[in-house]
């Protein structure tokens, strides 16, 4: 080998980045997938109790959500596939669909979901920027605009003397035509909360209202099952650390406490606290609706205030308000208070407000 003059190599170059250089595994779509997973038991329970109508609602709602979101993203010149793949629109659609009556006319489902996605979410700037829970905005919009349709519930199958098959449900949803030989009163039934609400306002005793109805563990038979299932899904979310205990515990705890006080004062006119906890949308609201991170309080103390206020409002509206259930309104009302709550509930920062004795 010949002697060559020593060459100085040019320095090896690298890509630069800012710290931290390690990445966690979680992303937004993973979180939404966990929420969808956690909704499976509740969805299955609804499907089992109320039949194919729930499935029709889900399919309609998901399709409408994807269509509405794509449309707005197209108009806003935003990436469509990338945004849809965060699955937030589908979560909104499913949450709303599970809250709707199983035989709701198809166009109402579509209007409600479109309103939720377009008005409540995208017009505010899309995911992360909306002030109000989109699913609950959609629900409240439908409930106020179409109260009759929105309170038309068929009973769960075990209480249903005139079950409708899937073809009948399909016909009812898309054409509004009832199965032959049946009228509205025959196939519809008041929900347990409506029963309680109407019964108490007619000055009946709780015992009288309960009389003659099939009761399960805590509430009316059938109706309480989705609540168990949602609570189970919620525990999965807690286990996966998607949500913290603060909001569900404060909602359920406050409801239990306030109902408990009224029950102790007069059990004749106040149902057991467990009735409220396992009726209506309590568990869905406590674990899935109120915990929507975008619209909920984000500080631990703030979440306790937010949750207890929701719990209190649910009880107040259910007991003295005009609507039998109140999850949507309570959550929406508290959504407006979130910026205020967050500002005044900042946790104690490390090294601040130390007691003088500590130093």
């Amino acid at each position, binding site marked *: 080998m010949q002697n060559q003059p020593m060459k100085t190599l040019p320095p090896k170059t690298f890509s630069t980045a*800012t710290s931290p250089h390690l990445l966690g595994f979680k992303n937004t779509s993973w979180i939404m997938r966990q929420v969808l997973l956690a909704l499976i038991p509740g969805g299955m329970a609804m499907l089992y109790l109320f039949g194919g109508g729930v499935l029709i609602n889900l399919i309609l709602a998901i399709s409408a959500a994807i269509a509405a979101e794509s449309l707005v993203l197209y108009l806003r010149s935003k990436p469509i596939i990338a945004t849809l793949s965060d699955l937030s629109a589908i979560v909104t659609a499913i949450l709303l669909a599970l809250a709707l009556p199983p035989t709701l006319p198809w166009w109402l489902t579509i209007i409600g979901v479109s309103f939720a996605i377009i008005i409540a979410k995208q017009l505010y700037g899309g995911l992360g920027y909306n002030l109000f829970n989109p699913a609950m905005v959609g629900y409240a919009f439908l409930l106020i605009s179409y109260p009759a349709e929105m309170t038309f519930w068929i009973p769960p199958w075990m209480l249903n003397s005139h079950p409708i098959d899937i073809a009948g449900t399909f016909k009812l949803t898309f054409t509004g035509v009832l199965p032959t030989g049946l009228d509205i009163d025959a196939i519809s039934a008041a929900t347990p909360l409506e029963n309680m609400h109407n019964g108490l306002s007619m000055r009946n005793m709780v015992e009288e209202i309960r009389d003659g109805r099939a009761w399960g563990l805590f509430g009316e038979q059938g109706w309480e099952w989705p609540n168990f299932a949602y609570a189970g899904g919620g525990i999965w979310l807690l286990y996966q650390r998607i949500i913290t205990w603060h909001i569900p515990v404060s909602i359920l705890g406050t409801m239990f406490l306030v109902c408990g006080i009224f029950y102790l004062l007069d059990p004749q006119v106040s149902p057991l606290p467990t009735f409220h906890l396992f009726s209506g949308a309590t568990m869905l609201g406590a674990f899935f609706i109120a915990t929507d991170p975008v619209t909920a309080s984000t500080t631990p103390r703030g979440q306790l205030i937010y949750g207890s206020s929701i719990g209190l409002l649910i009880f107040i509206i259910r007991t003295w308000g005009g609507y039998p259930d109140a999850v949507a309104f309570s959550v929406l009302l508290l959504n407006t208070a979130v910026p205020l709550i967050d500002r005044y509930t900042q946790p104690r920062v*490390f090294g601040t407000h130390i007691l003088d004795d500590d130093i």
Partner: protein
Amino acid sequence: MYISQPDGSQRRLWNFHGGLRLSEHKELSSTKPVSKLPIPERLILPLQQHIGTPSQPLVQAGERVYAGQTLANPQGDVSATLHAPTSGTILAVTEHAILHPSGLTAPCIILKPDGCHTWSPNLPPPITDFHTHDPNVILARIKWAGVVGLGGAAFPSNVKLQTNTHTKIHTLILNGVECEPYITCDDALMRTYPNRILQGAQILLHILGANHCLIGIEDNKPQAIAALYNVIQQYQLSQIQIVKIPTIYPSGGEKQLIKILTGLEVPSQGLPSMLGIMCHNVGTAAAIADAVVLGLPLISRITTVTGRGVNNPHNVELLIGTPITTAITHAGGYTDSAHRLIVGGPMMGFTAPDDSAPITKGTNCLLVTSPQETPNPPPASPCIRCGQCAQVCPANLLPQQLYWYCRSQNLQQVQAHNLFDCIECGCCSYVCPASIPLVQYYRATKSILREQTVAKRKAEQARLRHTARQSRMQRLEQERQQRLQQRKLPQTLPNATNGQVDPKQAAIAAAMHRVAAKKQQHAIQPRNTDNLSPNQQQQIQAAQIRRHQLNAESTHEDVTP
């Protein structure tokens, strides 16, 4: 919580909020003994390897220097001495690439080693009986040795030890936590040289007059704990205690470690000395021991060269100023998957754009990662306020709120949410499901706030200057008016006493006089008329005559119609 300690006792420890359990990857480098790098062909010594002002060079190109000879002296209060890591010839004092996030160059001394490593004959004598010496003598020695914090921040140690506070330091804490993944240089040091560290601890205790010393070490370093514990047992060092702490990032942060060990929180924006506590890195303690007991300056350190981007990750004792390329070559060179060059750990370290810079006193780790280890983050998606960041924040901040306020430049709320208590540990960015570079937002906003503070101070100074000038001008004007008045008085007085002139008329005349004087003062003065040639002066005179004639004519015209 209670953790069983190496001496078998249960010790109460405290938690800090948040934190992360990270994959450690420490086995890459910790399983091999510390190797020593042969003297490289060239050493590049930046004049600023520490926090503070750059050192003042004492040598010139062409000069021959001994190992340990002082090359640059500290400048100002916060600065450090720089020594020749080995004997050789100074090639230049010039700009060279340094290890800095900016990738900019800085003044460096370039040394060509002669390979002999001849020690300087002027090294100070060893101080073995440091107990009998005044702490100030020891401090002077530490200053001479150029010891800085070797945990990464590189703050001059003598300055830290002299920090004036109202509280006396009662507890010395040595930080052997090393909580960042991949880094094992402190682990290697503790396993290999426990005596040096403990000697350093005793010297530090003597300087501070402190009662006891705690050495915090994460429980993922059992060998280091055992090594130090054995020496403590052997020499019956009752003042010094090893404390095994749980492995959780970032327990190596100074404030976090103090909380874990003592349950006390360093006040926001404050210093540990307010609690009577001082923290030093174990590496710093060893360097202080070398300086005092051996009389050697800080010329080398143990650095971890690791990651899947190098073939033979290991810990190596390097001379300060060793080029990165030499260190990497010694570690088997780059693998094909070398992707990023990180200085420091993967959570808080910064990337270097290339490998042309040298190792400095604070370089604890060179991490060359593969794309699998440090993937490029996906594009940031909107914040959904999930609060994962707040759950892991060791300062108990609300990163999600800070993020909004940083983006909207709501600096008031940013400060109300204690941005300056952020230690930039990176936990929030790590867990963020929207992969928002949160720490980057906080750094940027912090610098905006710092700039604003400086600008505010300058504006305040300018305001004071302006008001001072205004009052001075006012005073001068008043004085001038007084002088004018005094000059006028003798002229007007006789007239007034005669009674021939109406006082009103006199006042008008005086006013006219003042106006005329003012007019004259304000009249345009010709400029640059000092050095005129006679020819130019003639021209000017001619022009003035013409102007006067013209003026006379124009006034005439004005009058006639």
